[in-house]
């Protein structure tokens, strides 16, 4: 299992980018007891047979590394959910895209820590491919609720390409100001 929930989200989002998605939505919803996230993309998707196979850690499409025999991204999601009383769900249609949702209990002692959302968002916004990414973050506590939405195209328009250390550093300042 990944060390934090953020690493798990990063891993699954990277799948969406490698599936040639042009638009990816990531939603992270946190309450006092639960953390849920959704990743939706319009990439190449999977047929129902492939969708079954990806649950197996010893399955990979073999396109990228022809002799490799493992594919651990989705199995990590399933393993984490199974061991922590979490839930997960994936819908996918070949040629249309994939939608993934997971819910984790924050009170289960085995649930990995959330990790650093600021650095997660910066990371998934700054892959070199050409894609739009909309991130929605909601945090609810008993007395308060805060949320914010950001889109990659707006950030690129404000900062230029998200690849120089300078723009990545400014992006962190921007994201931290929203997380506070």
């Amino acid at each position, binding site marked *: 299992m990944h060390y934090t929930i953020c690493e798990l989200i990063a891993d699954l989002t990277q799948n969406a980018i490698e599936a040639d998605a042009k638009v990816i939505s990531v939603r992270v919803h946190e309450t006092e007891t639960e953390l849920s996230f959704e990743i939706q993309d319009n990439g190449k998707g999977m047929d129902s047979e492939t969708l079954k196979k990806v649950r197996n850690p010893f399955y990979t499409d073999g396109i990228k590394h022809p002799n490799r025999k493992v594919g651990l991204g989705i199995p990590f999601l399933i393993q984490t959910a199974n061991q922590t009383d979490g839930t997960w769900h994936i819908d996918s249609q070949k040629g249309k895209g994939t939608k993934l949702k997971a819910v984790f209990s924050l009170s289960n002692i085995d649930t990995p820590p959330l990790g650093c959302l600021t650095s997660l968002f910066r990371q998934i916004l700054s892959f070199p491919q050409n894609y739009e990414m909309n991130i929605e973050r909601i945090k609810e506590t008993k007395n308060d609720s805060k949320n914010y939405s950001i889109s990659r195209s707006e*950030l690129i328009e404000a900062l230029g390409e998200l690849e120089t250390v300078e723009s*990545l550093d400014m992006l962190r300042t*921007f994201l931290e100001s929203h997380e*506070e």
Partner: protein
Amino acid sequence: MAKMTLEDLRKLRNETQTEIQRRETDGKSVQIIVGMGTCGIASGAKLTLDSFITELKEKNLAHTTIIRQTGCMGFCANEPTVEVIAPDMPKVIYGNVTPDVAKEIIEKHIIGKTLLDKLIIDYPSVDVVKK
């Protein structure tokens, strides 16, 4: 800190005059490519990426360095892996790049122009490419 708006972000960027500096350093830039497949992420590549950004800024190399992420480069046993392309230096892939090693790469490879011999990966994992 209050929530920054996109307008604040634009202002911040203009203050740092990125474009002018980038033009001046055209062709002299350093590229750092961090592997971010499942294997990289599981080995802490995100911390490595953060360490590069923080340290390069500290060393005033922020406007001449480009950082990119890529998927699995095929060296899962040696993650986190990082490819470094710097002027006057051969293109190399380093393995086991922890946040501390990232600092060392900046000091020795990028600034000092010396290779970190023991961390260079010279061939892909055997299950990816048959020798």
